[in-house]
């Protein structure tokens, strides 16, 4: 090879300048075309990272004639995020899961788990199984249980409990449907939980009572008379509408007594109310709050790798429905939460929605690259971080595009069959709900 390199004569020929310019011009045109295509595709994306309308052809065909797929959203941010967005994170996560299910040799288990515990701060005295040889692999150790009594529940029954071990990253009140992420990054509630469509389940059937009452779903004219007095839920475009099922009793405010019947608009009919609400006169998160007496709050809890990774019910509540967003699996480390806006709306997550004593309640475990599998104990059909689920989501997006409808970005299931009386799955405070598993 050296001889060939040394002895071969290199002869340079001049290329006409016009050919060079033409080549560079073509390359530039190609790049611009690709960029424009990508931009058009992004214009069709919603906050949840999926198509809001059809893109790439109304027949559901992609730009290259391939079936329409959920386009992968490219997050903006520093180079680390740009690099991360090019990686097949879900495939890596699944591979990581398989790797951690490999059986560890018997004599390496104790030193291995002790090293892991030392690095990530696991308190081994709390682990239910004192003999670490019992755990065949890291996945089993990661999903360990604790000794009974090491996590006593707060005695105050009006308190909301921490569902798991972790660190409180952010909490506060939701104003205008915006949830604040770490360091002031905000994202919309719709993007996190999914856009709400008007149905019989929302607003909750009874906010103050876990047991739905007979006839509570009907619109009552009396409610209109009361609600129009409320500043928060006054008339919309001249039509006064009701907030069905939000009140457990008649309004006792002083304004209701002194209302002048001559100046009050005529109560809207049920059809008008439904039409108005369907048009999105008010966002759903505004509709769930009870006439300015309640507000929506949020809290974000981060589970470090060494933490106990099962989660429990933070209060007594009824889960009415589940929404599974088969998104990406970025890391959810505090660093990435600071640098990647809307991280929780990109990642795969399971939104459990229902009601508690005070009204609406939702619980959302968000997956990450290392812990992509979310398990819900009372939902055997749920499969997260699964190739099958991804394919099904792609198919759903394709079918929605064919119908010319927007793809919601999630697969929904209801738990109404769990209890015909409660219309959902009831959970006690502190009851184990599920957990995060490796990969």
């Amino acid at each position: 090879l050296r001889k060939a390199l040394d002895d071969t004569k290199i002869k340079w020929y001049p290329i006409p300048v016009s050919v060079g310019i033409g080549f560079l011009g073509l390359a530039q045109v190609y790049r611009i075309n690709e960029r424009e295509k990508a931009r058009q595709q992004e214009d069709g994306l919603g906050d949840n990272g999926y198509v809001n309308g059809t893109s790439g052809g109304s027949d559901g065909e992609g730009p290259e004639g391939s079936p329409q797929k959920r386009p992968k959203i490219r997050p903006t941010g520093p180079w680390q995020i740009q690099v991360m967005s090019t990686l097949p994170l879900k495939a890596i996560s699944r591979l990581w899961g398989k790797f951690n299910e490999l059986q560890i040799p018997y004599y390496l288990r104790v030193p291995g788990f002790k090293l892991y515990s030392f690095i990530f701060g696991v308190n081994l005295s709390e682990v239910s199984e004192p003999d670490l040889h019992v755990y065949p692999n890291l996945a089993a150790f990661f999903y360990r249980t604790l000794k009974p009594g090491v996590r006593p529940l707060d005695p105050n029954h009006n308190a909301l409990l921490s569902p798991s071990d972790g660190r409180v990253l952010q909490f506060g009140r939701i104003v205008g449907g915006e949830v604040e992420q770490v360091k002031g990054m905000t994202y919309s509630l719709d993007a996190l939980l999914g856009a709400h469509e008007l149905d019989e389940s929302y607003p909750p059937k009874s906010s103050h009572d876990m047991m739905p009452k007979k006839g509570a779903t009907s619109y009552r004219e009396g409610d209109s008379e009361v609600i129009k007095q409320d500043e928060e839920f006054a008339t919309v475009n001249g039509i006064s509408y009701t907030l069905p099922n939000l009140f457990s009793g008649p309004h006792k405010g002083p304004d209701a007594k002194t209302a002048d019947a001559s100046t009050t608009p005529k109560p809207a009919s049920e059809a008008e109310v439904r039409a108005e609400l369907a048009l999105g006169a008010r966002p759903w998160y505004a509709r769930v709050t009870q006439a300015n007496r309640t507000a929506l709050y949020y809290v974000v809890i981060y589970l470090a790798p060494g933490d106990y990774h099962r989660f429990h019910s933070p209060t007594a509540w009824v889960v009415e429905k589940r929404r599974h967003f088969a998104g990406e699996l970025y890391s959810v480390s505090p660093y990435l939460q600071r640098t990647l806006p809307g991280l929780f709306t990109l990642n795969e997550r399971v939104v459990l929605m229902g009601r508690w004593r005070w009204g609406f309640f939702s619980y959302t475990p968000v997956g990450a690259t290392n812990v992509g599998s979310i398990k819900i104990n009372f939902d055997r059909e749920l499969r997260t971080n699964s190739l099958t689920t991804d394919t099904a989501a792609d198919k759903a997006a394709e079918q929605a595009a064919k119908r010319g409808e927007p793809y919601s970005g999630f697969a929904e299931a209801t738990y109404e069959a769990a209890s015909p009386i409660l219309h959902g799955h009831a959970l006690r405070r502190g009851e184990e709900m599920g957990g995060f598993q490796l990969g």
Partner: protein
Amino acid sequence: STVVLVFEAPKKKRPSLDEGWMGDETKIKGGWNWTVEKGQTVKMGQAIGFV
């Protein structure tokens, strides 16, 4: 991994002027109260807030 809770809870009730409220925020009672700080480590079962 992360858990996000979004829930509805009563607002704090500010007393009316008739009830003698003179702008003292500490007199505002009821409603939702947080018992945690940002960055605080919590254990399962610990209260993070109460009504």
